[in-house]
């Protein structure tokens, strides 16, 4: 079995040989045992330097950008500012076609299937392993991306891609707690463990957690003081799930959704487990007459909480690789980043892009400065990364048992 077949099996389920082999596979019901070694799993204390394969080399330096080409971008829904793209099109005299996806599993299976011919893709670090091993993304030629100097120095050698061979950072974000100051007393910052804030009987019916098995089980782990968010310990997971069950009982039914950015401004939910970028955009969702100052966002001051970053990569199938590199470079330049954040809400890790600057540019209300990710958060923060398959299923199983499928 080639590596590619194996990876396809990872995503969509190992296929049987087909109708013809239906009953002839009697003896080999379990299929041939694969000889591949498991993919390296990057961790903060086990950084990974990905190999550069002979048949997947970076493009040579000094090439001119393709003329009159169409650059194809594959990105999350509503995750990039069209205005910045328009400026890119004008500067490099090209056109940019943008397709969106809703879930990362959708996107990865489309790319793996070979049906797509995108140039630029925005994955999360926990998917890099399979993309690189399957040679779906190409190594970068750094000479086209001088703007990396504007980024935090951490990104010149991130643990998930040492030597930034395949990725440049796109956005960074944290997962914290958001609450309505006008309805809720107190503040997670005043608590010893702010992540315990949702566990309050007083606000029954008004508490929500994220619909994401990693994020919410991590919340349960942190509730119990466990900060290894990539744990494979079944007992820790059980404990986390039990805490979530307690939460459900305590608040008379905890809501599970990803609509923190609409439900908290509208007052439907008063305490929500939330993503920083979502809450930064709260101002545009406030109903008439309600000031944005009533929305608060908290993340631990010592940075020990879930952080993550999305990256931009160039796909191997790219037909305009030079333009793709220049696109990555364009989104690392401060003025473009400011304009992108004004639409997106999600911070990009540029040295000059400080909370004060964003407030000054009127992109962020001062009350929500806590949604900005500081370099210290990033260094101390906890990453939710790729898990070994058995552990991953264990996480999914526990989440399913808690959520009942919702």
């Amino acid at each position, binding site marked *: 079995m080639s590596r590619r077949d194996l990876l396809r099996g990872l995503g*969509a389920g190992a*296929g049987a040989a*087909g*109708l013809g082999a*239906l009953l002839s596979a009697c003896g080999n019901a379990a299929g041939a045992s694969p000889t591949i070694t498991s993919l390296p799993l990057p961790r903060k204390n086990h950084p990974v330097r990905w190999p550069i394969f002979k048949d997947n080399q970076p493009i040579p330096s000094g090439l001119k950008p393709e003329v009159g080409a169409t650059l194809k971008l594959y990105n999350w829904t509503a995750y990039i500012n069209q205005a910045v793209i328009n400026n890119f099109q004008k500067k490099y005299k090209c056109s940019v076609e943008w*397709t*969106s996806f809703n879930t990362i599993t959708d996107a990865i299976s489309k790319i793996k299937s070979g049906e797509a011919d995108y140039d630029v893709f925005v994955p999360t670090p926990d998917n890099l392993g399979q993309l690189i091993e399957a040679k779906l993304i190409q190594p970068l030629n750094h000479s086209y991306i001088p703007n990396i100097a504007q980024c935090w120095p951490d990104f010149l050698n991130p643990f998930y891609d040492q030597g930034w061979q395949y990725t440049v950072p796109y956005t960074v974000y944290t997962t914290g707690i958001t609450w309505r100051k006008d309805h809720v007393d107190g503040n997670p910052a005043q608590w010893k463990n702010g992540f315990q804030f949702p566990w309050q009987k007083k606000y029954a019916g008004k508490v929500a957690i994220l619909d994401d098995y990693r994020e919410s089980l991590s919340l349960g782990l942190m509730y119990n003081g466990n900060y290894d968010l990539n744990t494979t310990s079944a007992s820790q997971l059980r404990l986390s799930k039990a805490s979530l069950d307690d939460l459900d009982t305590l608040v008379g039914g905890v809501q599970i*959704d990803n609509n923190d950015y*609409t439900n908290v401004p509208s007052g439907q939910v008063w305490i929500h487990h939330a993503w920083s970028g979502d809450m930064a955009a709260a101002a545009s969702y406030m109903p008439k007459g309600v000031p944005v100052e009533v929305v608060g966002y908290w993340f631990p001051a010592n940075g020990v909480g879930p952080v993550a970053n999305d990256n931009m990569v160039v796909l191997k199938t790219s037909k305009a690789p030079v333009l793709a590199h220049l696109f990555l470079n364009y989104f690392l330049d401060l003025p473009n980043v400011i304009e992108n954040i004004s639409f997106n809400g999600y911070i990009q890790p540029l040295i000059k892009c400080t909370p004060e600057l964003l407030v000054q540019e009127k992109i962020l209300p001062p009350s929500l400065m806590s949604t900005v990710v500081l370099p210290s958060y990033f260094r101390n923060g906890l990453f939710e990364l790729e898990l070994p398959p058995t552990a991953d299923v264990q996480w999914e199983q526990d989440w399913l048992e808690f959520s009942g499928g919702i």
Partner: protein
Amino acid sequence: MAVDTAVRTGASPSGPGATITPATTRRRLPPWHNPWRHAWFLEGFTWLYLIWSIVPIGLAVLFSFNKGKSQSAWQGFSLRWYLTDPINSVLHGAVYHQAVIQTLRLSALTTVITVPLGVAFAIGINRWRTRTSTTFNFVMIVSFVVPELIFGVALFSVFSQLYTSIKLGTWAEVLGLVIWNISWPAIIVVARLVSIGPSFEEAAADLGASRFEAVRRVLVPLLAPAIFASAVLVFAGVIDDFVIVDLLSSSSATQPVSVLIYSTTRGGNNGPALNAIATIMLVVSLIVATLGYFAYRWMTRGERGANTQDALANITGM
């Protein structure tokens, strides 16, 4: 009849030979004792149900023409969410018109495949009386009663584990919809065949037609209304379908309107553009239904008896 009237008005003849009292002095019971009076309570109840059933849809359609984003405050009439809004309108938002096109594509492909398949199946089963045919007739009816989720699980499993060359996506959706909807033409056409009987074909055979000619020139025209009705039902059924396409779709490019509404609503992004595409699909369904109804009436003009009634009765088990 006179006795009847007497019973109705409650007047009692006082004995043999008694004269019937004139109408003006007959004691009349209050209206609510009249067993033939109109059922006002039931009518009110029905109207309440109809209002509860239709008004929310009307409001959803109404707010698709709202000038602003609100779903509860009317801000003026506008076609913004259909045509003019640069990001969030059906015309400009790629995800919206892709969904509309995907729905229509699925409906057309499924109808074109399902109807001939189902009609041929029905004719064959009806005429070919063997154990095999009865078995498969039974299988067909069973496929009608399996809940859609379980059906969907089976189809999802087979496309991801066995028929892996057909990946999840448009063709998997079409095949799933075909097998899900094939019972419509099968059952309706069988009902029609049963009510037609073999007499017409026998007559044709007597007049010298070959079997093939008899089918083509006699049977198919007689079946036309049933074929047509089942085509309409299949088409509308596919527009409405959710579970099978949800489980068999692969990415945002292959999701029809029903799945788009579902995933966007879950995401809290309830723009009026959703109302707009839902309204568009509503209009398409209504047009198909109306055209179908008139065409059916025209095709069955001059016939007595209600053949759809038979089919309906079959399906409802009466």
